[in-house]
Every structure is written in structure tokens, then in C-alpha cells.
């Protein structure tokens, strides 16, 4: 009986451990805020929030495999390129990409190969 209760308590502790974890880290209500640059992105913000990884994948395939180097959307014509295009506006990876990715526990492998231009001092 005692052992079972102990086991049950252990189970409950494990079950509720995420609650405690966040309290300990003090980030219970933390939601990342992003610095969204001025101007239009290649697609709408809502669309990009959900599907930027798909856009990037399409870009990747278009650029590498099909040799297509330009992307035409409602907002204009863009050169396909992560470093060259995306990071031109979203110049601060740490503040833009990483915040959300860290929050969502996502670790994209882009940066293993692609380079981050040095953060330019704000003009």
C-alpha cells in the first residue's frame, strides 16, 4: 500500500514536473516578442509565421535543383537566398530567428552551412 502510494506520488511528480520546471526557470508566461522590420516581406506576415520553413524549402529546391534564382510574389521580385535576401532585412539572427526557434525548441540546421553576416550597427 505504502509502496503504491509512493509510486503514485512519483508518477504525479513526474506528471506535474513541467509545471514546476517553468516556475523554477521563472518563464511561466514568457512569450517571445519579435522585432519585425519595416516593409513587406516576400509574403504576408501571417503566412510567413506558419510557413516560412516551407518557403525556404521551396526556395532551396528552386535555387539548387532547378536553377531558379528569382522569386516573384505579390510583393515584388526577390533574389532567392537566405543570407542575401532574408537576412538583409532580418539582419539580427539572434533577435529574430533564434528567439522563436528557442521558444519552440526548434534547431534548424541552416546555419551549419549558411553564414550570418555580421550584425551591422543600427544606423
Amino acid at each position, binding site marked *: 500500500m505504502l509502496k503504491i502510494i509512493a509510486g*503514485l506520488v512519483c508518477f504525479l511528480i513526474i506528471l506535474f514536473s*513541467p509545471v514546476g520546471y517553468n516556475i523554477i526557470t521563472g*518563464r511561466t*508566461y514568457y512569450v517571445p516578442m519579435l522585432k519585425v522590420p519595416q516593409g513587406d516581406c516576400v509574403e504576408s506576415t*501571417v503566412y510567413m509565421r*506558419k510557413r516560412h520553413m516551407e518557403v525556404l524549402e521551396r526556395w532551396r529546391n528552386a535555387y539548387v535543383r532547378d536553377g531558379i534564382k528569382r522569386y516573384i510574389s505579390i510583393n515584388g521580385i526577390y533574389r532567392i537566398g537566405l543570407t542575401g535576401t532574408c537576412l538583409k532585412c532580418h539582419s539580427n539572427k539572434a533577435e529574430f530567428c533564434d528567439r522563436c526557434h528557442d521558444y519552440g525548441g526548434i534547431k534548424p540546421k541552416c546555419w551549419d552551412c549558411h553564414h550570418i553576416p555580421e550584425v551591422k550597427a543600427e544606423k
Partner: protein
Amino acid sequence: MKIILPFFAVSGIAAVIYIGVKVYNLQLVFGIILPYLCFILALVGFIARIIRWAASPVPFHIPTVCGQQRSLPWIRSSKIDSPVTGLGVLFRVLGEVLFFRSLFRNDRANLYGEQKRIIYSSDKLLWVGALLFHWFLLVIILRHLRLFLEPVPSWIISLQGLDGIFETTMPGVYISNVFISLSILYLLFRRFRSRIRYISLPADYFILFLLGGIILSGILMRHIYRIDILDAKAFIMGLIYLKPMVHEGLGAMFYVHLGLVSILTLYIPHSKLMHMAGVFLSPTRNLKNNSRMKRHINPWDYPVKVHTYEEWEDEFKDALKEAGIPLDR
């Protein structure tokens, strides 16, 4: 009937949630009230069920022994299948929990060649299927922790990376998703086969369909009906810390997924899913084989009517005398 009804039940639940969210904007009902309600009921039910089990004693010491007992010092005893120490029992129970050792025991003998030598092979399909399902379920649950923990611990990220190691698309296909889908299909289809179908109940199919629905909605959400993962995490964190909020970026599929998980949670204490706790309590597995070494107490033991020696001697006095067997009186 046994199969089609549970199928309709699960699809019905999913459809109601989908339409409710998509058409009637019932996010509040399916996203907040339902999960809270289910979780609380499930928790209470789960604890109640365990307490009820615990309240019934184990009156007798009845381990199923699957190996040589410890008797004479020169005979090698089986430490795990006939455990006499707590450690042995621990290994035995863990063996069941982690590796399904009993299911693994399924042997098949085949005769080969002129010599008719016996070769043991096995049809361990059920074992493989069950093991894949449960292990990948664990992986998937651990992966979901990224939506519950802030900051996300690095081991979860590593696990995720490992799981998505065959990354070919964005977002990557998880190995666990592939295997859990395969194994749930296997577990479902084996129930369609005659022998298992005979012993299956609608409840058995219900759980499989429900799990299938959860897996399917999860995969759809990841690859087709994308949702904003930030909103998902913010939503879940809100739920945990009792500040529930409806977020814009969550599609109907998210609520279907969440709703089905809630139903599953609610269903746990009332179903065979309690095997997750029961496997630890099974008296044939979690007792030591030390029945003759240590007395086991039966808490509800009561005196019974016995035929005492005195009564017996009185009854057979003459016969005993005739046989020359010594008498007490």
C-alpha cells in the same frame, strides 16, 4: 459492428470538434473547457483506480516463477525470473515495462534437416509491433515537452534532432511518426484477423482508432494544416498556468488533435489503458520467489473450522488401536 462503431465514434468526435471550431468558433469549448475537464476527471479517476487497487490486499504470495529457484548453493538460480532480492524483482518488472520480456518469450520450434534438429525461431511480430509502438509513443511524448517547458532543455532538442535525422523536407519527417503509424496499423490489422478479432471488444478498436486519430491529426498538423508553433506553445503554457487564451494561429486541426488527446486522457482510467500502471502491480511479477523464506501475511485471514487431531483420534480410536499406532489419549 464491433469495428465500425468505434470507427464512427472516433471520426464523429473528430468531426464535431473540427466543425465546431471551423464553423461555430467553439475554440473555448474544445480548446479550453474540454481539456481541463478531461484532465481533471482523468487525474481523479486514475488516482481513484490506483487507490482502489491498492485498497485490495495481496492475500497470498503468488509469483509466477520462470526460472530456477534459489535452493542449494551449488545450483545456479535465476536471479531475474525467480528473484529473491528486491533488485531481482526490480529488474523483472523493468524488463516487463521496458522490453516486454514475457511477450518476447514466444518461442517457435522448427525441425531442420535430416537430423531433425530443433531450431528455435520465433514469430516475434507482436513483440516488435508493441515495442515499437510504446517506445515511439514515449519519444513522441518527450518531444512534445518542448511545448511545455521554457526554456526547452537541450536533451529534448537533441532527441528531436535524432528523431528527425533523416531530414529531407521542411519541416522534417520524424522517424517516430513513421514507426508509430506503422505499428498502430499493425496493431489494428492484427485485430482484424480471425483469432484476435474473436477476442476483441469494441473498446479495443476504439482505443486504436483514437490513437490513430491522434497520430493522424498530429501528422496532418505538422505537414499539411500548419499551425503557428509559437501560438501553440503560448496556448499550452496558458493552459498549464491557468490563464487560458484562445490564439489566432491555431487551426481546427490543432483542436481536433487536442480534443482527441483529451478524450484519450479521460478514457485512460476507465479502460485497459490502465495497464500502464497495472503492470507495476501485478502480483505474479512483482513478488519475490521467497515464499518459503519469509512469511506472507494475509490481512483478512480468519479462523476456519478444522478437523483437529483430538476429534480425529476419537473418531478412529479403534482403528488406530488395531493398527498399533500410538494414541495421545
